């Protein structure tokens, strides 16, 4: 990819219109909101709350089901950037059903959502599940398959290696960190789901560390995500070893969709100034280890 800045899953990915707008605004690739086998309304509100250093969310995988989503992917493709479908299921069979039901330029397996029963991190925290699901989906589709990993484990590299053994074309790290916020006035957890996932600047150092470790251990590309909101963040993630970066929470900043272009252009100017290529920048921090 010439432009390594990607729209992260779960952000502005419900409609083809917003995916297309992200692509036309300068995203090199866009990832849809996670799609499953049946329509889901998601958790009750509040589904998002601003906390120190970022956002806490528990959307609950709302989606219209793969049977009602192809048209959104097709509209998204009008932005002339690859559209990667984020998909979820409770096991290999359901993942394959969803993947086979969609025509996309790639798939990102959501094995990391921290707030949905029977899905995401509940199965994705076990390496054997990651490997089996990756293998099953790889066998059923002929486009690239990425695996999005949860950081809520002792050994994220173990999950990355499992994805690689399953045949993944890349891993995406990290999903949100398990977190919680409580309303001091009432003592109630603020999120409707009580628990959720933390995103934004607060988790960037955690993501950089995960990407560094994964890139050092895996042969397949690692895509960095977590708290990236400017070109410097993107450069840092690439120096940790990321082949590309995803942007999510930062879409809430005043520049909105404009953030893709500002990160991509900032990075390009930086590379020119350093007289370096993206490839040379990638994993640069490893030189010092």
């Amino acid at each position, binding site marked *: 990819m010439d432009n390594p800045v990607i729209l992260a899953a*779960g*952000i*502005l*990915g*419900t*409609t*083809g*219109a*917003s*995916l*297309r*707008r*992200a692509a036309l605004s300068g995203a090199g690739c866009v990832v849809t*909101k996670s799609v499953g086998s049946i*329509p*889901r*309304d*998601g958790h*009750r*509100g*509040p*589904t*998002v*709350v*601003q*906390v120190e250093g970022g*956002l806490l*969310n528990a*959307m609950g995988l*709302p*989606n*219209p*089901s793969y049977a*009602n989503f192809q048209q959104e992917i097709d*509209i998204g493709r009008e932005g002339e950037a690859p559209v990667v479908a984020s998909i979820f299921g409770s096991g290999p069979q359901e993942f394959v059903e969803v993947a086979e039901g969609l025509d996309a330029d790639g798939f990102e397996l959501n094995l990391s959502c921290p707030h949905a029963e029977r899905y995401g991190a509940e199965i994705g925290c076990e390496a054997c599940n990651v490997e089996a699901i990756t293998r099953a989906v790889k066998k059923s589709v002929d486009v690239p398959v990425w695996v999005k990993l949860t950081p809520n484990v002792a050994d994220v590299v173990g999950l990355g290696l499992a994805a690689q053994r399953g045949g993944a074309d890349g891993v995406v790290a990290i999903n949100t960190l398990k977190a919680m*916020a409580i*309303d001091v*006035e*009432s003592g*109630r957890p*603020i999120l*409707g789901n009580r628990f959720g996932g933390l995103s934004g600047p607060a988790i960037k150092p955690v993501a950089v560390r995960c990407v560094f470790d994964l890139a050092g251990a895996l042969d397949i590309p690692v895509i960095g995500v977590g708290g990236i909101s400017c070109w410097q963040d993107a450069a840092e993630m690439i120096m940790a070893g990321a082949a590309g970066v995803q942007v*999510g*929470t930062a*879409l*809430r900043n005043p520049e*909105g969709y404009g953030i893709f272009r500002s990160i991509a252009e900032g990075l390009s100017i930086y590379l020119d100034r350093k007289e370096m290529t993206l490839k040379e920048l990638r994993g640069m921090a490893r030189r010092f280890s």
Partner: protein
Amino acid sequence: MRPKNAQIVEIVRETANVRTLRFDLDLDPVPGQYLMVWVRGVDEVPMSISHQNGITVQQVGEATKAIFDLEVGDSLGLRGPLGNGFTLTGKRILLVGGGVGAAPLALLGEEACERGMEVTALLGFRCCDDLLFRERFERIGELVITTDDGSEGICGRASAGLSCLDLREFDQIYLCGPEPMMADFIGRCPGMETKIQASIDRYFKCGMGICGSCCIDPAGIRVCVEGPVIRADRLAGTEFGRYRRGPSGLKK
């Protein structure tokens, strides 16, 4: 921001299924902005602001029913004011409201009146019992009322009131009401779209422009941050007036 705690200091029964809640804090809104209202233990829903310190709620679902069960002294969690409200411009303005859509327009009209603008309001209701904020509108300018059953004012939808107004006299027109009514009204004003501001209702989850549940086809306008007030020329050729999406993203 985390939800601010707002204690209810007054509840006004406006009609059989519309109530105004006044809070112990000044919201300082731009008219047309909204709040994400957290009914603890139930849900969080967007509500437009009707007073400096209050909201006006129509009972339509579970969250609004729970709001109706609250009493003075109870509290809600509020995020906001959020989004882009109405922009006041010109010397003569027309407010066009349907049902509880009159609520933010009353606040807007009062601010326009304070600024010395000439305000006319055209409000449509189902029947005379549903009339909302009549005194507030009468205080700030001319008021034309329509009712579906003819029990008050002109018989018919809000657009029936157009017969007694010359739209060319107005520098700016502000809409808030049921979407079919607003779409119908805009359709009757060809060439005036850039003078019309409409407050749009969509399914909001995050209220901060990231989740995508409120995006309008085909341009992907994020209603929760780019709206809820959107100029009518930006709505031309969109899903507005034709369909919307529910919580799962399914069209309905």
